[in-house]
């Protein structure tokens, strides 16, 4: 037995998704700082993903606990990114000059 939901405006969501996709493509060619472009792209992608989840997957009409289940992967991903950050710093600070110097030190022994 299926519980009837009030139907969202599916075509309205489609037009928003389309406009955001076109904007995303325009943004990558915009004369802006790379960081600003990346931030804009992330905001637009998350907005589009939220639109799909909320209205096409009907998360907006479901119980809050189901929303928590759906959000769990996002929270864990943020934790994963923080967990990876120290390793990223280690790789980035290992410049070619530093590597050459390290090789020189090892070569002397």
């Amino acid at each position: 037995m299926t519980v009837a939901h009030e139907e969202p405006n599916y075509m309205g969501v489609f037009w928003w998704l389309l406009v955001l996709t076109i904007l995303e493509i325009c943004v990558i060619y915009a004369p802006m700082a790379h960081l600003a472009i990346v931030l804009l792209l992330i905001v637009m992608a998350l907005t589009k993903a939220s639109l799909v989840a909320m209205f096409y997957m009907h998360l907006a009409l479901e119980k809050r606990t189901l929303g928590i289940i759906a959000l769990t992967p996002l929270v864990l991903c943020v934790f994963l990114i923080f967990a990876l950050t120290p390793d990223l710093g280690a790789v980035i600070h290992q410049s070619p000059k530093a590597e050459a110097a390290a090789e020189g030190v090892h070569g002397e022994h």
Partner: protein
Amino acid sequence: MSQAAVLEHPGVEPAESPLTPESWGKLGMWIFLAGDAMSFGALLAGYGALRYSSGDWPTPSHVLGIQLTAFMTFLLICSSVTMVKGLSAIQHGDQAGLRRFVGLTILGGVAFLSMQAYEWTHLIEHGMRLSGNPFGASLFSTTFFCLTGFHGCHVFGGVVYLSCILVQALRGRYSVTDNNPVEIAALYWHFVDLVWILVFTFVYLV
């Protein structure tokens, strides 16, 4: 099943789930999708980490075909719309509408896979390999093929899943009061669309 029968067999599950009163299957699909989202999340986080720590990562929009993938994104968005329209049709008792819209959704998925096969063939002809590429960091092509390939497998799975739903729809299996399997399949398909939105942004545009 009567209340007495349930009491006689304590192993029988209760008829309703508190989270998804429609069915246990819907809750099961949400839990599966949460697990699957973690797989994609880990792949995307790994992609970001490798890219950020690489000095010679190529600019994706200079190497990959943005126009083609933008059209593929448009196709998947359209297929999400046809999927919700199909679900809406059967919720209003429109059997023909369900068959038409699920059929269109499958077509959208097949078209997406065909374009991905074309894109991969084109890139492989230009030297992109799982182990390296002529454009810069070797992990650029490794991560590209892993991420888009993993997503492509999901699209293929979705096409097979929806084909099974279509066969059942052709047999008149679903009705206004019994259409939960369509809603569960729709959840999977929208998830595939949602993930592509993120893959398109992070792998092709950023």
